[in-house]
């Protein structure tokens, strides 16, 4: 539009540009308005909880809220020897208050995570406070030897800040020395890092397995006439729609040592009755069951990509003299790479987050890091550590999710 021309106007005299912009703004607003209830809902029911959990992995309120006087009294402590009477006096007063309010338990647990024995040091001492007389320093050390150890006091001082890195360090098998340096945990205490790696490599293996099994199926479905492929598609979708627990149960029935597969092989004489294969409660169980469960998530994206590849490409390549394998490798396969990426990332993301199946069929060696999150949530009740492990896992998932979004676009995901 040149400058000299008069601006176009709508019937009521408003410049067309303005009017259009207004209309766009209005429809933008309308669209946002439609999305907002859902955004609000997910914000409250999902996003806030996730962030709150993340904050738990660094929150460290126990020492500062339950031992305020002790923390204050420790301010000018030289960290060279066990503190003097005033600090002990403050500690006794804090513990008396806590004992009366019956809320020392969380403090005791918190310190016990860092140093075994602190739980009973606090609980036992607190119970015996009634009859305790000054001078408290001797009386306390008498009551429990932990109070006479320098490391105990360094620990209390260190954990008096409202935030801590210890949960993340523990989640990565590292620890702080009493003097605040980060070191590896002793060999015989290291467990999480190897579980993270196991989760990743087993998920990688499962992804590879789904690709190997899913590729031919997707190829077949994409190249059959729609009438037949729709029928076969049902065979892919049925497991997809069947309860996860049902599918896991079936694998237990099939793979266990008194199960269908072992019975069949004993019957056929492949193996002896005493030498049944252990195919469940180990890595094999996890990989087989999860490959089965995640296979549709590989087939569907592959299929939708292969569907868009015109068969004439291959025919053209063949007619130009390419051998079948060469044509496939040079023409067809490269065209399916977006599907492989989409399916692969999707399966991998879902796999590293699986909990139910590894818990039921994984036994000891087929466990994932998720099982450890559940363990710390429900059994050891170390919720800070659970939150730290969960945060690390979440970061990995989010990175892959962003890659997926970049490569494929979440709005391109199709279901069934």
């Amino acid at each position, binding site marked *: 539009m040149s400058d000299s021309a008069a601006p176009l106007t709508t019937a009521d005299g408003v410049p067309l540009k303005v009017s259009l912009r207004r209309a766009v703004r209005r*429809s*933008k607003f*309308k*669209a*946002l308005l*439609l*999305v907002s*209830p*859902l*955004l609000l*809902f*997910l914000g409250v029911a*999902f996003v806030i*909880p*996730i962030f*709150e959990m993340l904050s738990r992995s660094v929150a460290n309120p126990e020492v500062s809220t339950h031992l305020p006087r002790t923390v204050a009294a420790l301010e000018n402590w030289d960290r060279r020897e066990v503190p003097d009477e005033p600090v002990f006096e403050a500690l006794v007063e804090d513990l008396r208050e806590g004992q009366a309010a019956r809320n020392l338990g969380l403090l005791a647990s918190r310190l016990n995570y860092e140093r075994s024995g602190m739980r009973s040091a606090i609980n036992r001492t607190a119970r015996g406070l009634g009859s305790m007389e000054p001078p408290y320093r001797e009386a306390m050390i008498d009551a429990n030897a932990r109070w006479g150890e320098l490391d105990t006091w360094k620990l209390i001082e260190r954990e008096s800040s409202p935030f801590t890195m210890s949960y993340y360090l523990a989640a990565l098998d590292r620890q702080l020395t009493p003097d605040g340096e980060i070191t590896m945990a002793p060999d015989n205490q290291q467990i999480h890092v190897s579980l993270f790696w196991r989760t990743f490599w087993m998920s990688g293996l499962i992804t590879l397995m789904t690709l190997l099994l899913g590729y*031919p*199926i997707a190829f*077949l479905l994409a190249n059959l*006439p729609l009438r037949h492929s729709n029928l076969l598609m049902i*065979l892919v979708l*049925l*497991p997809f*729609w*069947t*309860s*996860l*627990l*049902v599918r896991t*149960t*079936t694998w*237990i*029935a*099939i793979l*266990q040592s008194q*199960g*269908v597969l072992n*019975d069949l092989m004993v019957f056929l004489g492949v193996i002896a009755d005493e030498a049944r294969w252990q195919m469940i409660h180990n890595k094999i169980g996890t990989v087989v069951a999860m490959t*089965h469960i995640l296979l549709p998530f590989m087939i569907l994206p592959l299929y939708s990509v292969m569907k868009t590849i015109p068969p004439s490409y291959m025919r053209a390549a*063949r007619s130009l003299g390419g051998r*079948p394998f060469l044509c496939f490798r040079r023409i067809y396969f490269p065209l399916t790479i977006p599907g492989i990426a989409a399916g692969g990332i999707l399966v991998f*993301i879902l796999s590293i*987050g*699986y*909990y*139910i199946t590894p818990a*039921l069929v994984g036994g000891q060696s087929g466990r994932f890091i*998720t099982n450890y*999150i559940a363990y710390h*949530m429900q059994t050891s009740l170390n919720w800070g550590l659970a939150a730290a492990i*969960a945060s690390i*896992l*979440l970061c990995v*998932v989010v990175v892959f*999710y962003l890659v997926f*979004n970049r490569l494929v676009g979440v*709005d391109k*995901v*199709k*279901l069934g």
Partner: protein
Amino acid sequence: MAIPSYATRGERIWHYVFLGLCTLIFLFLIGPLLVIIPLSFNAQPYFTFTQEMLTFDPQGYSLRWYQDFFTSSRWLNAIKNSFIIGIASTILATVLGTIAALGLSSRHMPARGVIMALLISPMIVPLIISAAAMFFFFSRINLAQTYLGVILAHTALGIPFVVITVTATLSSFDTTLIRAAHSLGANPTRTFFKVVLPLVTPGVVSGALFAFITSFDEVVVVLFIAGPEQRTMPIQMWSGIREQISPTILAVATLLVLLSMLLLATLELLRRRGERLRGVTPG
């Protein structure tokens, strides 16, 4: 997939090998589901085929595990809970998700990618993490151990499926149809009910079915935030598998396979109807 006439002998062999391979993979996909159906009629409390079953001796079969299931107040109560929670969360997820999908499919939707990524995230975030997070938060706001808490949690998990299916339907929706309806004299309400709704319904319904099955099949979140009154089917199965593995589980599993067949059939019918309405015919 026909073999082209110019195929060599090697290619023909490869073709049949390939078909055989595919058959095996299909067997891997479907076989396990088929194996448990006869096993659930086992007269013995075993997880495998007995001698009597293999010789088709009627003595080897019985309905005792089904009887077990239908007379157990625990299982029946669990079913009831699963349906209450499933239906309530499906309705919520479908309403919220469909409204949002209408906004998302607008051409002028700002920050579409970011918002979409956010709405899909409950599907991507590992369930154990969502469950732990909801456990902390819902406990704090007194929603843990309540039906409402479980329903809201399952609504959040079902939403991505509704959003995905409904936006997919809307994106293939031909907006000229609306203009056509207007130009033929229909008012907006009439257009919505007579034109838009019939075309969009299949997408909404299949989204709703996805949301329902998500809730109906969900263990982890219920494990963390539900109380004893909200025990659902999957929880009952989960503790059954972990503690005392009885073939009642297989009876339940068989019933659930039938349910999923039913849902799948519904979905297939909807898809065909959708295609017919849009004038796409299967080739």
